[in-house]
C-alpha cells in the first residue's frame, strides 16, 4: 500500500520547515554556538518551578475545566487588564491553551470556512502560513520591509485585502525581526479592519520584552477593536516557561465558546501542573521578568552594535529577543551565509527565508544566549564576513 497517496492533499503540500532542515545539520556538528534558538536561555524562575512541584505533591493531577483553572483565568484577566488595558470576563472570555500555538489553531479553526483568506505580515513566525492551510484557509502574506524596520504598514496591508479576506494575524513584537508597531500605525490598521470587517488575531507573546522604555501597546485596546480581536498570549517567553506549554486566548464570549468546542474535543484541557505554575508566574513572577528583560536589553545593544560594526546593517529592534541583520553586502544568499558560517566558524543562525520568502537577504540571530557566547559568536561572524565578502 502506498501510504503517501492517503495523506490529505492540504497537508502533503505543506513544505518541510526550513528550520527543521537546518536543525538537523547543526545537530550533527560539535562545539557550535547557536544563535538559532527561539526560546529563553534562562531557567524557569525557581518559585514557578517550585509551584509546579507543589502542585504534583498536592495531587493536582486530574483534568481541569475545559477553559482552564478558574483562579488562573482570573489572574489572566487581571494581568491583561493591568498591562494591556483590555477587560475580559474570566468566566466566558478566556481559554487556557497548550501554548499560543494551540490558541492560534483554535482561533483559525473556529473562524475559517474553506477558501477564506487570512492576512499576516511576513517575515513571521514559521507556523502562521501552515496553520492557516491546516484550517483550510488561504494564507496571504503582507510583506514588511527593512526600510520600515519591519513594521507592517496599513498601506501594504490595504493592497492585499480582497472580498475574501476574513482574518488578520499579527505578532508584534515580532519573531523573527524584533519589530514593534507604533500606536499610530495600529490605529490605521484597526480602521482597515473595521472597514473590511476583519477579525484580528493578535499574538503578543513577546510583549513583556520591549526595550528603550518603549511600552507595548495592544491593538485590542483601541476603541471598537476588542469586539473583533482575539488576544493571544502565553508564558513561554516572558517567564521562560516554554516546556510548560501554557498560553491563552481572550476573545468575546461567542468566539471563545466556538474555540472551546475545538479545544474540548481535541485537547480537553491544558496540563494541570503547568496551570498551577502559571498562577504563580502571574502572582509573583514580575520581578523575574524585569531581571530577564534587562539582561536581554544589554545583549541586544551588544549584538546590534557588533553586527553593524562588521558591515551587516541591522536596525535596533525594540522587542522580542531577535535581530534580523541584512547580509546582502556579502554577495551570499541567506542560506549560503548561514551554511558557510556554520561550517567555517561553528556559529548557527537561521536563514531569513525560513520565515517566509521576504526574509531573503537576512538572517535571524537570537540573543537568548549568554553574553559570553554572543561575544565569541560575534567575533567569529566578523571573521567570516571579512574572509568571505565577495569582491
Amino acid at each position: 500500500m502506498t501510504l503517501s497517496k492517503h495523506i490529505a492533499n492540504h497537508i502533503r503540500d505543506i513544505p518541510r520547515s526550513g528550520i527543521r532542515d537546518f536543525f538537523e545539520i547543526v545537530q550533527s556538528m560539535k562545539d557550535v554556538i547557536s544563535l538559532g534558538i527561539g526560546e529563553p536561555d534562562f531557567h524557569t524562575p525557581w518559585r514557578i518551578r517550585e509551584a509546579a512541584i507543589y502542585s504534583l505533591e498536592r495531587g493536582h493531577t486530574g483534568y481541569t475545566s475545559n477553559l482552564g483553572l478558574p483562579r488562573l483565568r482570573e489572574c489572566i484577566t487581571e494581568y491583561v487588564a493591568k498591562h494591556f488595558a483590555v477587560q475580559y470576563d474570566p468566566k466566558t472570555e478566556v481559554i487556557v491553551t497548550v501554548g499560543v500555538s494551540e490558541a492560534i489553531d483554535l482561533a483559525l479553526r473556529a473562524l475559517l470556512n474553506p477558501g477564506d483568506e487570512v492576512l499576516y505580515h511576513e517575515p513571521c513566525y514559521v507556523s502562521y502560513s501552515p496553520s492557516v492551510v491546516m484550517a483550510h484557509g488561504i494564507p496571504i502574506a503582507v510583506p514588511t520591509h527593512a526600510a520600515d524596520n519591519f513594521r507592517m504598514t496599513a498601506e501594504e496591508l490595504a493592497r492585499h485585502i480582497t472580498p475574501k479576506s476574513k482574518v488578520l494575524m499579527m505578532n508584534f513584537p515580532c519573531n523573527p525581526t524584533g519589530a514593534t508597531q507604533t500606536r499610530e500605525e495600529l490605529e490605521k490598521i484597526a480602521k482597515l479592519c473595521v472597514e473590511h470587517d476583519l477579525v484580528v488575531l493578535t499574538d503578543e507573546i513577546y510583549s513583556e520584552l520591549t526595550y528603550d522604555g518603549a511600552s507595548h501597546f495592544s491593538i485590542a485596546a483601541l476603541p471598537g477593536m476588542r469586539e473583533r480581536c482575539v488576544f493571544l498570549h502565553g508564558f513561554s517567553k516572558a517567564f521562560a516557561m516554554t516546556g510548560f506549554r501554557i498560553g491563552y486566548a481572550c476573545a468575546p464570549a461567542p468566539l471563545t465558546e466556538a474555540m472551546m468546542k475545538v479545544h474540548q474535543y481535541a485537547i480537553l484541557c491544558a496540563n494541570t501542573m503547568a496551570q498551577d505554575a502559571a498562577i504563580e508566574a502571574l502572582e509573583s513572577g514580575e520581578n523575574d521578568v524585569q531581571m530577564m528583560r534587562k539582561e536581554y536589553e544589554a545583549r541586544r545593544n551588544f549584538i546590534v552594535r557588533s553586527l553593524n560594526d562588521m558591515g551587516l546593517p541591522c536596525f535596533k529592534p525594540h522587542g522580542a529577543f531577535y535581530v534580523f541583520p541584512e547580509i546582502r553586502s556579502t554577495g551570499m544568499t541567506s542560506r549560503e551565509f548561514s551554511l558557510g558560517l556554520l561550517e567555517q566558524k561553528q556559529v548557527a543562525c537561521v536563514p531569513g527565508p525560513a520565515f517566509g520568502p521576504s526574509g531573503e537577504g537576512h538572517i535571524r540571530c537570537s540573543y537568548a544566549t549568554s553574553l559570553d557566547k554572543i561575544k565569541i559568536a560575534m567575533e567569529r561572524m566578523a571573521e567570516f564576513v571579512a574572509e568571505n565578502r565577495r569582491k
Partner: protein
Amino acid sequence: MDKILPLLRANARTSVTDLAKSANLTEAEVIARIAKLEADGVVLGYHTVVDPKKVSKEQVSAVIEVKLTPEREGGFDKTAERISRFPEVQSCYLMSGGYDLLVVVEGTTLHEVAGFVSEKLSTLKGVISTATHFRLKTYKENGIELNKEAGPQRLAVAP
C-alpha cells in the same frame, strides 16, 4: 540608577569595550561614569567571590550575634564602628530582633576566631553578650550558587 551598575555588579571584570556595547555608550562615557560611581561612593570596591573550601582548608568563618547597650549619644553606632575596624570583621550589620549586631568574622583557625570573640569583642565596653555560630558548609556565596544548575536543555535550533 546608572545603567553601567547592573552590568558591573554581574561581572566587575567586564571590559570597557564590552560595557560600552552593552550599555549603548561610548568607551569614554563608560570610563567617566565608572569614575563618577567610584567618586560618589556608589561603587565601594571590586571583589573576587571565591569558594573558600578550594582556597585553603585553614579558613574559618563565623557569624556572631552581639547584644549591646546603646549609648546616650550615638546609639549603637560608636560601638558598631569600633567593632567594624577590626580586620577580622568582614561584615557588620545592625539588626532588628533578638540581638543588635550581626558580625561576620573570618580567621585561619577556630582558635583564632574564638580568641577574637573572647578577648576583643566580648570585652568591649557596651557589649552585653555574644553568641558565635561557625560556618560548616557553603551553598551560596554572594548570590552565586556553588553547585550551580546546568543551563536549561534546549534544542540546537528552534523556531
